[in-house]
């Protein structure tokens, strides 16, 4: 299986967007690249851009490896991608409003009702509740992969609390510092207006009763969370308080933060805490991260949560397999971005096929994320395959399977020099009361191991700067 290469296509050509980069790579001595890479690492370590790996006792803070060779998209490629992303996120929001409201798509038979009703992420609390301005998924991260010059597939929708956008911004920052000459020869669309767009999005969805200058805060589980760096980074760029659950209190269905001058009313909460932990009175009662009474205040219309509670039902991997139908049903258009062909193991025929072809397929847990709990058939040994076979037989409804895609590759600076490695792309899509916005590019993740298809940082993946060329 030969993968499409972002720079060389099928291997024999040089794609125009990579022209200057190719020349630069050929001219730059390997020592310079190695030096620049270590400078980049130093930069990331000094600013403390680290992430925690759960279950890794050795080091609670690690750096995500950064690759200095950018991934380049042309303007036309991005324009088409962006159109598809807008369409997809519009459909996601309409789907959420529907499953918590009139349920037209269930009545029309677009998706089996039990996939919604029996979904652990479907929150009964949200049924018939009008979210402020009708927006559920304010911040979405849509993972796309490329298989040839023209085809992008959506691999996964992240509609809960997608992370990684700080890497998108810091990667650009470090590239600008280390390689100013490359930016002189390339017209790269900037990404540093993301915080402004995010702030505008959050302000636009404040409750109608809020003042014209609403108070916004970012709710984090705290510094031991794997994405804490990102939370503090974003709070800083947004100019809003970074709060933990214990900094907030609810009185008479109004949320306040504890300040040195007494309680201060909060109107919008960009929360980076999962539904389950957000309010011990409604969800997990053992959660110490959340705020007792928060859901009450939310439902009284006194505070906006972004994202809304219960958005997980839209990015469930079983629901994912129905996304083409969902997009068509709600937007009346053909989906611009394709789905990866998906076998739903809950359907006996599909499951039989999957069980027969485990060594060829990628099998994912419906509720898993971060690359945990997934089987990459062609790279798994017999024991792993057999253990997955048992899991699949025991609870087929918990899994989906997809063909092993030839994710596109991008030149990457590794120990042996510059070599192709598989990449994906996570653009960030913002939905507010005034529409959708999306900064050009997103976060490119790269599987640093030769041949590996798993790009997740928790599984040894790295990141790259992503360039959308303006001309």
């Amino acid at each position, binding site marked *: 299986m030969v993968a499409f290469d972002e720079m060389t296509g099928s291997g024999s050509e040089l794609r125009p967007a990579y022209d200057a980069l190719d020349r630069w790579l050929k001219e730059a001595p390997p020592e310079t690249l190695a030096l620049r890479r270590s400078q980049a690492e130093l930069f990331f370590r000094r600013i*403390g851009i680290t992430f925690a790996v759960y279950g890794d006792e050795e080091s609670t803070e690690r750096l995500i490896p950064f690759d200095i060779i950018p991934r380049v998209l042309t303007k036309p490629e991005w324009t088409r991608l962006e159109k598809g992303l807008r369409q997809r996120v519009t459909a996601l929001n309409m789907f959420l409003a529907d499953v918590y409201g009139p349920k037209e798509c269930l009545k029309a038979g677009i998706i089996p009702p039990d996939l919604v009703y029996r979904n652990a992420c479907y929150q009964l609390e949200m049924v018939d509740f009008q979210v402020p301005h009708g927006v559920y998924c304010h911040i979405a991260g849509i993972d796309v992969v490329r298989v040839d010059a023209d085809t992008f597939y959506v691999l996964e929708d992240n509609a809960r609390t997608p992370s990684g956008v700080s890497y998108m911004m810091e990667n650009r920052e470090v590239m600008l510092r280390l390689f100013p000459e490359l930016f002189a020869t390339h017209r790269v669309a900037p990404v540093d207006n993301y915080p402004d767009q995010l702030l505008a999005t959050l302000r636009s969805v404040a409750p109608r009763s809020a003042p014209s200058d609403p108070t916004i805060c970012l709710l984090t589980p705290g510094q031991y969370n794997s994405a804490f760096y990102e939370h503090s980074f974003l709070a800083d760029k947004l100019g809003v308080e*970074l709060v933990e659950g*214990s900094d907030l209190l609810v009185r008479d269905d109004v949320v306040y933060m*504890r*300040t*040195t001058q007494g309680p201060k009313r909060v109107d919008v909460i960009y929360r980076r805490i999962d539904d389950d932990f957000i309010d011990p009175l409604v969800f997990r009662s053992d959660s110490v991260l959340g705020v007792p009474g928060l859901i009450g205040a939310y439902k009284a219309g006194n505070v906006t949560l972004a994202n809304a509670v219960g958005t997980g039902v839209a990015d469930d991997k079983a629901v994912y397999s129905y996304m083409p139908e969902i997009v068509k049903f709600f937007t009346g258009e053909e989906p611009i971005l394709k789905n990866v062909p998906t076998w739903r193991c809950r359907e006996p025929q599909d499951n039989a096929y999957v069980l027969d072809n485990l060594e060829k397929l990628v099998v994912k847990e419906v509720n898993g994320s971060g690359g945990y709990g997934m089987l990459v058939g062609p790279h798994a040994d017999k024991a792993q395959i057999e253990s997955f076979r048992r899991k699949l037989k025991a609870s087929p409804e918990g899994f989906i399977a997809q063909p092993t895609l030839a994710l596109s590759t991008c030149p990457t600076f590794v120990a042996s020099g510059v070599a192709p490695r598989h990449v994906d792309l996570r653009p960030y899509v913002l939905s507010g009361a005034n529409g959708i916005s999306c900064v050009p590019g997103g976060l490119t993740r790269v599987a640093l191991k030769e041949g590996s298809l798993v790009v997740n940082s928790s599984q040894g993946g790295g990141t790259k700067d992503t360039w959308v060329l303006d001309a």
Partner: protein
Amino acid sequence: MLSRTADSLYWVSRYVERAEYLARILDATSRLTNLPSAYGGAGPEWQSAVSTAGCEDEFAAAYGEANERNVCEFLTFHPDNPSSIRNCLAQARSNARAVRTALTSEMWDALNGAWLELQRFEKKRMDREEFARFLDWVKNVSLVFDGSAYRTMLRDDGYWFSRLGVYIERADNTARILDVKYHVLLPANEQVGGSLDYFQWTTVLREVSALTAYHWVYREAVKPILIADLLILNRRMPRSLAACYESISRFLDALGDAYGRQGPAQRHARKTLATLNNTRIESIFQHGLHEFIEDFIVDNSGLSNTIFEQYLQ
């Protein structure tokens, strides 16, 4: 500002100040113990270093004998000592990390850089020379952090809470040094001012880096009453209790003005400052230096609690 943010800023400064203080104690104690016993060396200095650091109980639980190796180990890297230099810097960084955005990047660099560097010191066995370098390094970390705060922080409530941490901790440290030196080092039958004391008292001055200042201020041989005057009442001496309270009162007033409200913390600080300004060192000695210092330590930690109740919870 979030109460938790203010609380963390306050504690970041306290921990950095305390780390520096521990380095000073260790530095001054090694100097003193290197003297022949006739000059005051080889006495209970290491035990007194533990008392000055305020962790006698923890030390007793971890070790029996107070000798150079045990005390140095305990006050620098021991995991069971919540106030070891290592844990102070770890706490400072952890608090700083939780409120990253309230610090300037220079302050964060100082702490994060120190934390990364610390692991290198921790891993190797240090000889005396390396240990001395390590202590200098700790003092330097505090200087860099303090200087960064002074030079780069916006002059608003964040800065004031951070400064309050410095001065409350510093006042506590100075008071503890005075307290311990009077009671542990001075043999009951020894006359104050004997030759044995000379080196012990100069050690006190070294611990607060005030030996030169002493000579400039008093132009006299080192005498306990003047040392006490310098460290308690002299407002020109930056580590004296009076100087600390002058700053504490000023920063609390700045907070009160900015928030448009005075409270118990402002009144408390003003009262303590007035006492320090209106007392003469002779009368402190008359009524008992020990009692005065003990009362001060209690009063100072009382103010810390009041600040917590008024602003930080």
